[in-house]
């Protein structure tokens, strides 16, 4: 058991290292970068907008009722913005992106492994890591922070909607509270988390899909399904653990 876990860490580190190192080996990278942006950006946009909006709405609603107990409704903007920027946006956006882009990536690579497309690349002298994985990893460093930023903006508007329009907090007070509360270091923490979560989760999902054939208990279509599930579960847990570790450094 322990050996398996240590072996898994080692295998993951080698996979990630090889995929990042061989970025320069791949020719004609831009079309695959654009495709990766589409997969991790455009395709995931609706879910980020919906989850961001409702997170903001709920934060506004809960925050208002908690703060009103202490007569501090004026701090609603600070509560919503700091909650979103420091914790909720990077984590929830990463979990949503794992569910959408990460699972799709694991399934796609798993199918390509099953139908020998990955081996075919290797026999052509094309690095499968450079061709299939590297562009996705590069894009994750940009797409996750971008999606997180969007999540924050939509969430703040959600908070404003429930706090100001529905519960009566003055709109000027809300936005002024946001402006006063948010500091540069909060944004730095937010984007550092988003970039790291992006890199970790896309690498984990790619790693699981890429080696979908290694699972001895499930082969074929079940192997792909098992690899996809493992990818999503491991990536989600890793994001939560990494969130705690990073937060403890920043606080």
């Amino acid at each position: 058991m322990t050996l398996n876990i240590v072996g898994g860490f080692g295998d993951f580190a080698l996979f990630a290292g090889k995929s990042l190192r061989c970025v320069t080996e791949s020719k004609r990278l831009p079309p695959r970068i654009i495709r990766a942006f589409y997969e991790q950006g455009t395709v995931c946009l609706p879910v980020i907008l919906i989850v961001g909006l409702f997170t903001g709405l709920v934060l506004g609603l809960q925050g208002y009722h908690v703060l009103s107990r202490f007569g501090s409704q004026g701090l609603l903007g600070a509560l919503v913005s700091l909650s979103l920027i420091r914790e909720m946006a990077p984590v929830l956006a990463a979990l949503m992106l794992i569910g959408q882009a990460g699972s799709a990536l694991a399934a796609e690579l798993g199918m390509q492994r099953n139908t020998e497309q990955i081996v075919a690349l290797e026999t052509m002298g094309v690095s499968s890591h450079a061709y299939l994985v590297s562009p996705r990893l590069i894009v994750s460093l940009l797409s996750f922070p971008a999606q997180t930023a969007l999540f924050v903006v939509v969430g703040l508007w959600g908070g404003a909607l429930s706090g100001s329009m529905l519960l009566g907090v003055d709109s000027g007070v809300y936005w002024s509270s946001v402006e006063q509360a948010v500091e540069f270091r909060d944004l730095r923490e937010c984007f550092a988390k988003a970039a790291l979560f992006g890199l970790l989760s896309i690498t984990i999902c790619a790693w699981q899909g890429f080696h979908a054939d290694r699972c001895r208990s499930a082969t074929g279509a079940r192997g792909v399904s098992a690899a996809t599930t493992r990818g999503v579960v491991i990536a989600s847990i890793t994001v939560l653990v990494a969130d705690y570790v990073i937060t403890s450094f920043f606080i």
Partner: protein
Amino acid sequence: MIAHEEKFILQVEGLKKSFDGRSVLGGIDLGVPAGSLFTVLGPSGTGKSVFLKCLANVLQPDAGRISFDGKLLDAEGRAGFRKRCSFLFQSNALFDSLTALENVALPLEQTTDFNNKEIRNRSLEALQQLDMEDFTQHYPGQLSGGMQKRLALARAIVTHPELVLFDEPTAGLDPLRRNAVFAMIAKYQRRFNFTALVVTHDVPEALVASDRVALLSEGRICFEGSPAQFSSSTNSIVHSFRDSAEALAASLSAIRQEDGNKNGNNSR
């Protein structure tokens, strides 16, 4: 037909491979003459595909030496070998999210410095040579089995390889299509002058199309020679593999005769 003074483009010595302690290849020695269509025959499960995948470095052999064009295929030699060799998979291994043209263009895009126009022209030329010019924008899933095979061959030859490895190219096809695939391999092997190494269990087609054949049995090459020598060989393994249809007919005849005798006894 091959020349008398044979130059082996591919030489294999003592190739061994086992899985979980079970030996699949028990020391293969083989020489493939340059410019020939060489077929390795053998029943299913004897390690033909494993042999081919060891040659293509998809699987790592446990022991043995592989030389290509006189150079040992070690870690350094592999890089050059991959540029001069193509592999045609049993499943075709086409990229299902790319069109036919993109499939053929991929090896050129990733392994050469040609510009886009040159890549497109070469890819279209390869597709034209395999009569696929009307299907350039089709995805593999929209093509028939035979067309997919031709598309896979177009992708394999677009880089002008010197050696093409064919893994069970006729698996699962009816006799007519088997003939067509072997005819296609023989035709393009001669047209493009590459060396073709085919593994299959289809004896009649292989004997007609090949320059040389070898028989793989229990992880070893137990026969190597011309198709004529294979047809007249008295080797017991060759005999049992080659004349399996006759053996089946004899066996069925005996069963029918036995059934006839039983029915006769019952009716009395």
